[in-house]
């Protein structure tokens, strides 16, 4: 397994290099000119030249790219064009906040959605299954933004059950996070339960389920010991590969609830042409995505003994 992991890690190097090259070319050639964006209508040629020099944008593109690769390799990511803050500090601070926003509802969502999907699979074909289908397809059809605006208006403003927006670091953040967590769980329920229901129903038609029934196994044992375990591979693929994106938070949620996570940082960087943040974050997410893909493959081996890593 170690050889497999080492080989996969080596294979990911050209992938990350390709992403870095693509991102660099994209922002250097077709992206917004950060110098002009920063200086606005008061720019003079002198100030444009000064700022280009300060940000190293007067260097030839290969030199700039080599510098970017060095920053990624050493994780010394430089500074934000906007605030002058070190990117490592911005990312570390923002990632913790984003994770506090996304991880709890992610875990709650897994537990709740699996439970509901199993329940639906158990009652497949009944009125409960049909009702759940209507409810969850309906919930999927509503925009994320509508949930945010409506929940914020009703539960925070009108009913006064939660703060409207804001964030404090540490445990004091809890009151500010509960409503966003609820929204994330509610929004994820529709698509997740639909997928899980399909996966579970596929499994219920498998030969081993029929065999288990023939052997007299109870419905509960079949559902939890056999179906759930065999359904884990597609479920793992879906969930583990979405973990890197938890780092980015839920940018709409962060904006509307004034939660200072990485998602909002990314949106602001797009608006203001903060190229170091955009490029570094994109490549870091690509690296995280590669690593979690590898983790998924390793977990396959644990979830399904038939899978051999070689």
């Amino acid at each position, binding site marked *: 397994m170690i050889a497999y992991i080492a080989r996969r890690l080596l294979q990911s190097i050209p992938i990350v290099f390709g992403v870095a090259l693509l991102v660099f070319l994209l922002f250097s050639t077709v992206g917004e000119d950060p110098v*002009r964006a920063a200086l606005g209508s008061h720019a003079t040629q002198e100030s444009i030249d000064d700022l280009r020099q300060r940000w190293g944008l007067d260097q030839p593109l290969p030199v700039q790219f080599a510098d970017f690769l060095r920053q990624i390799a050493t994780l010394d990511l430089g500074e934000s064009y906007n605030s002058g803050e070190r990117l490592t500090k911005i990312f570390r601070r923002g990632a913790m906040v984003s994770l506090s926003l996304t991880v709890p509802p992610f875990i709650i969502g897994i537990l709740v959605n699996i439970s509901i999907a199993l329940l639906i699979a158990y009652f497949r074909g009944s009125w409960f299954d049909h009702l759940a289908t209507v409810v969850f397809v309906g919930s999927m059809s509503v925009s994320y933004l509508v949930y945010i605006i409506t929940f914020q208006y009703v539960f925070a403003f009108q009913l006064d059950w939660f703060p409207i927006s*804001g964030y404090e670091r540490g445990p004091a953040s809890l009151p500010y996070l509960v409503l966003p967590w609820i929204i994330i769980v509610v929004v994820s329920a529709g698509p997740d339960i639909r997928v899980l229901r399909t996966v579970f129903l596929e499994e219920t038609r498998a030969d081993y389920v029929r065999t288990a029934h023939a052997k007299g196994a109870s419905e509960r044992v079949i559902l939890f010991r056999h179906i759930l375990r065999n359904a884990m591979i597609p479920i793992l693929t879906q969930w583990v590969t979405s973990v890197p994106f938890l780092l980015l938070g839920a940018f709409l949620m962060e904006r509307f609830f004034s939660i*200072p996570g990485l998602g909002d940082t990314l949106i602001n960087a797009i608006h203001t042409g903060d190229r170091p943040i955009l490029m570094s974050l994109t490549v870091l997410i690509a690296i995280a995505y590669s690593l979690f893909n590898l983790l998924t493959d390793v977990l396959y081996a644990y979830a399904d003994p038939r899978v051999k890593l070689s």
Partner: protein
Amino acid sequence: MDWRAGVARWFVGLALATIAGCAGPGEPRTPDDGGLKILRIARRNEHKSLDPAGQFDSASAQIVANVYDTLLEYDYLKRPYQLVPGLLERMPEKQEDGVTYLFTLRRGVRFIDDEAFTNGVGREVGVDDVIYSIKRFADANINVKSYILMQGVIAGLDEFRQKTRTLGRAIDYDAHDVEGLRRLDEYRMLVQFTGENPLALYPLAASPMSIVAREAVEFYGDAIAQHPVGTGPFLLRTNDRRGTMVLAKNPNYHGRYPRQGESGDADRRLLVDAGKQLPLIDEVHLPLIEESQPAMLRFRKGELDLHTVDRDNFIKMVHRDEGGRFHLKSPYSEQFLMFAEEALTCEYIAFNMNDPLVGQNRALRQAIAYALDVDAFIEVMLNGRAERLATIVPHPIAGSERDIAIEYYTYDPAKAKAKLAEAGFPEGVGLPPIQFDFRSTAKEARQGFEYVRHELAMVGIKAVARFHTFSAYLQRIESGNFQVGNSGWFADYPDAENFYQLLYGKNRPPGPNMGAFSHPEYDRLYEETRFMPNGPERFALFERMAMIVRDEAPVVLRFNRLDFGIYQKRLRNVTGHMMNDAPYKFFNLDLGESGQE
């Protein structure tokens, strides 16, 4: 009890509570701050830097202007806007040569206590601090954004800037004097400008020109951008860019509330605190709230004291009476107060005068001017939140159409068609589509263009549009690769010159004369009026310039916007001030239900 009945009751309770809650907005609550006067206002954007010389954005200026001081500032109540002494004891006194001014500093003003100073105690501000701050402002290694405010203004300052560029960050300010900055004693200095230029005083009120302490800059290094040490009305207590910035009262601040205002200010209760020591509140809390909905909800709940009214909320909350005055609708009128103020902006469309079609065909430009119904645009697209302009100068500035007589184009499709025929395109036959470039990709820009496109189509002019990010738009303008640009200008300082320069021949791109309009008589009049004091003589020349702009139509003038603010009844001394976005030191709060201080 059956669990299903329990769940049903819970849902019914939730539904009833929701319905009850949706019946109408609740009364805003007064926060319990334990007797402290805490002002709460949302920040809409993150600040970039708290180093005066390192920032030139409104979010940074919102903080910098409250923790640092400038030599001059704008009077809070006087209109038109006028400069008054800030750190100076009196206005700069012009010397006999006409280009040198005597600056006399206010005595006894101290920097806030900070570990950067000996024993942690802030020392008195002196002339050396002013000279150091101006040199630092001119340092190309520090200031790449706002030097344009002072470019070519103070004798020898441009040369000093060039030295900073050559020598880099190792430059020793003491070893390089600036010809135009002469120290007389601890409190007095002479500033020599490059020519007779009364406008040169305006940049002294801009936040990048704030006075800093050398010890603090040297102590904190680059971290001075996060650690302001000034003489302003507040000091920074909590620095959380992405959260809530907290400013606390500087008990040693020197400023006082103005004793006089405009007529009607007393009736508006703007003079209740006349002459009082500033600031009038204990703390300012500035949470970052980037989206409109949560900001307005928090305002309505009483968690914010003052908030701007955007387009969507304007429709819901504000109505205009037959006299054109704006009022809050019920129930908001019972809960809140509102102000409306004309912004110092001019929005216009500019023709590229080098374009072979629109640049060479005056009648075509005039046809477009007649075809656009600006009043209807304001009504339909802006809900009346703007005023039509007949000159390039916004109404609140001396020298606008309120001071001169000018008839500008009004919507007249028949005249538009006649001009179109005169241009060689009767009913638009043979006229290729006119290309509009927009400096925004937002839906408002696209909707605005659709409105204009429809109006032009009514007289036979086809229009197409490209929507750009702001920097891409500027690049296109500078390269001259455009036909018609949708543009606008916000006053750097409240003088008509700042707007007439937009059509001055020498200001062609990359300067602000984006269409490269060139007219010898206009240029001569501009140079003549540039540094004249306001008065009938200057206004007469402005009138001629406005006529040239009308007749030559290098631009089609449209409107200046109105800004609206809504605030809690407990907040006092609120008035729109377009040269000061964050006049927190003048605000006061009534504490408690009774309205007692």
